[in-house]
């Protein structure tokens, strides 16, 4: 079989072999460095070089063999990936099964003038691993994507037409920086602050080990996500043509993801505490293939004013939103929450009292100033943690609501960070309503709905409501299946 663009038969660009080789070089270099460091290298340098050389030759031959014998054929109804290597492999991916198609340009893609197309199937298995990945010259990839627009998304736009489509929300690069700072969950920001404080203390205490640990944790919890967010969401655009939504962004690696609106399982307006204080929110969606790993969120709009996010949601997915007169979490639900909080707060205070009474052991030999700093820190946390625990329940009681619309239902959950999630009844896989002993005593329960997500599957849990109200969610899911309002063909 030969690559033939006219009959829509493609082979990966040869640069994929370079990609495999570079990854191997990196792994082999780390291992070789470790071996040279741990052993007496002088007599073994030649052996190690020979082994490294042999590994590189094997990887090259293997990659070449695979590249040469792997073909991608786009028929009118399916993508057929065929490989005749050691074992013959044939993969048929119906276009109707695709949840999203992404076009990515990494640094390596830019060097070779290529684009990477990834095809994600609407399945919770291996949701973060694409079902098929194809690397092509950029102009060829653009031509193919234009053809796929009509084949997969029944959309007549070409790539050039897409460039001219107005974005549904104007996201400036300043917005992206603001998103990188305020968009992270509050617990992550608090952890970052804690590490910063710890680093400062270690710096004054002249403890290099503690300082390095604190700095590493600070970098991984705060700095890396901040830089990642800027790199990922720079030059952000989102638009909808017909039933297809396209999201594109990226500074070094550019990504363009397209998905049909009927593949959206749920949409979520997320408001981290600091963002909420200044009236901002972000919009996320659960679509398979929209997140590359478990730490990623399938973002539809970075932090913007909340009314703007609501308007965007209305324009992007009017099928899912509805005018809501929500049921608020009943006041009696606060009692079991507070009883649980008392138990946790008592445990925290007991730990700090324990530290106070055993202080003479671990503060032994310290200067008076340092002993005072440590005791003040312990006292601060002994008060602060219970305050945060009770504060969370107070805020959760205020925010948690629940409502059912015609085609979707809504859970508002969270304490410091809140989320308003609209879930399509037809995307609910199963439901459980659970109540603990305290909750049963006050006649409340929580409801978890399980569905496919961008990273596999996930459950979304409501606040505490009367169980008979929450049971209505599963009753409605069943009613739609029984009376035909659920039509599986609508989700092809």
């Amino acid at each position: 079989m030969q690559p033939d663009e006219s009959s829509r038969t493609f082979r990966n660009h040869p640069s994929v072999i370079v990609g495999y080789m570079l990854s191997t070089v990196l792994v082999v270099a780390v291992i070789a460095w470790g071996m040279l460091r741990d052993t007496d290298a002088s007599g073994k340098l030649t052996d190690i070089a020979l082994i490294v050389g042999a590994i590189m030759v094997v990887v090259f031959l293997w990659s070449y063999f695979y590249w040469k014998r792997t073909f991608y054929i786009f028929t009118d109804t399916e993508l057929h990936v065929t490989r005749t290597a050691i074992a013959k492999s044939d993969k048929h991916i119906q276009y109707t099964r695709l949840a999203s198609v992404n076009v990515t340009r990494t640094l390596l893609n830019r060097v070779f003038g290529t684009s990477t197309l990834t095809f994600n199937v609407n399945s919770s298995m291996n949701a973060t691993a694409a079902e098929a990945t194809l690397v092509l010259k950029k102009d060829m990839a653009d031509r193919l994507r234009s053809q796929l627009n009509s084949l997969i998304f029944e959309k007549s736009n070409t790539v050039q037409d897409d460039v001219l489509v107005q974005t549904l929300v104007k996201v400036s690069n300043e917005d992206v920086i603001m998103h990188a700072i305020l968009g992270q969950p509050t617990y992550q920001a608090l952890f970052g602050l804690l590490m910063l404080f710890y680093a400062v203390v270690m710096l004054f205490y002249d403890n290099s080990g503690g300082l390095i640990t604190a700095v590493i944790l600070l970098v991984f919890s705060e700095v890396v996500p901040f830089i990642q967010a800027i790199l990922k969401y720079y030059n952000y655009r989102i638009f909808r043509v017909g039933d297809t939504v396209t999201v594109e962004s990226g500074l070094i690696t550019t990504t363009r993801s397209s998905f049909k609106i009927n593949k959206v399982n749920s949409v979520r307006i997320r408001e981290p505490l600091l963002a909420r204080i200044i009236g901002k929110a972000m919009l996320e969606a659960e679509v398979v293939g929209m997140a590359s790993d478990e730490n990623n969120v399938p973002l539809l709009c970075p932090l913007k004013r909340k009314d703007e996010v609501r308007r965007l949601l209305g324009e992007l997915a009017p099928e899912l939103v509805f005018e809501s007169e929500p049921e608020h979490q009943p006041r009696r639900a606060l009692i079991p929450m507070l009883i649980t909080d008392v138990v946790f707060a008592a445990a925290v205070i007991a730990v700090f009292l324990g530290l106070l009474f055993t202080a003479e052991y671990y503060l032994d030999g310290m200067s008076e100033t340092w002993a005072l700093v440590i005791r003040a820190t312990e006292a601060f946390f002994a008060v602060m943690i219970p305050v945060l625990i009770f504060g969370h329940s107070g805020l959760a009681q205020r925010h948690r609501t629940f409502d059912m619309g015609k085609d979707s239902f809504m859970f508002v959950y969270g304490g410091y960070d809140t989320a308003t999630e609209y879930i399509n009844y037809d995307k609910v896989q199963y439901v459980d309503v659970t109540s603990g002993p305290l909750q049963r005593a006050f006649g409340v329960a929580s409801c978890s709905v399980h569905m496919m997500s961008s990273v596999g599957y996930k459950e979304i849990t409501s606040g505490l409501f009367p169980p008979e109200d929450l049971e209505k969610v599963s009753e409605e899911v069943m009613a739609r299946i029984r009376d035909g309002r659920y039509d599986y063909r609508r989700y092809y």
Partner: protein
Amino acid sequence: MKDGKVNRFKVDENGLTVDGYRVLNPSCLKSMYLSRAIGIVITVAVFYLIYIETLDTEWAAKWLAVIFVILLVYCAVGPFVFYKRYRYRMDEDKIEVRRGILYITHLLVPVERVHQVDVRVGPINRIFGLADVGITTAGGEVSLQFLEEDVAEGIATALNDKIVRMLKERV
């Protein structure tokens, strides 16, 4: 009737509760007690080997004894409560399970969402002729636990038939 309330655990001559659920066979208790006993023995042995030196101190031994007693009480009472509360039912279009020890859960899976069904028999369950039915959906997995093997096979076959029938109707 009990204090004016319906007794939802009492079964009729067909083995069904008043709301049409089935309850577990009492032999599931033996399976649960045996697996927990094995679990406790292994945990205690591993813990003892790791912390053999620390156990010399009086306070550590006291705390471990308290933890062990709590664990023992939970393992003694837990299976009984689980057995008493576990109920399941399957009709034409849904599977329901009510279960839990402290936290009670009512679980509902529409048959329309089921992708795969399998019957699993572990070594301990095999001794008592019991099996679990694993029900996979796109949103995760649910299982019907401690069923008699023939009941488990029957449920799995019935579910598979329903799924095949549904898929054929769609072709």
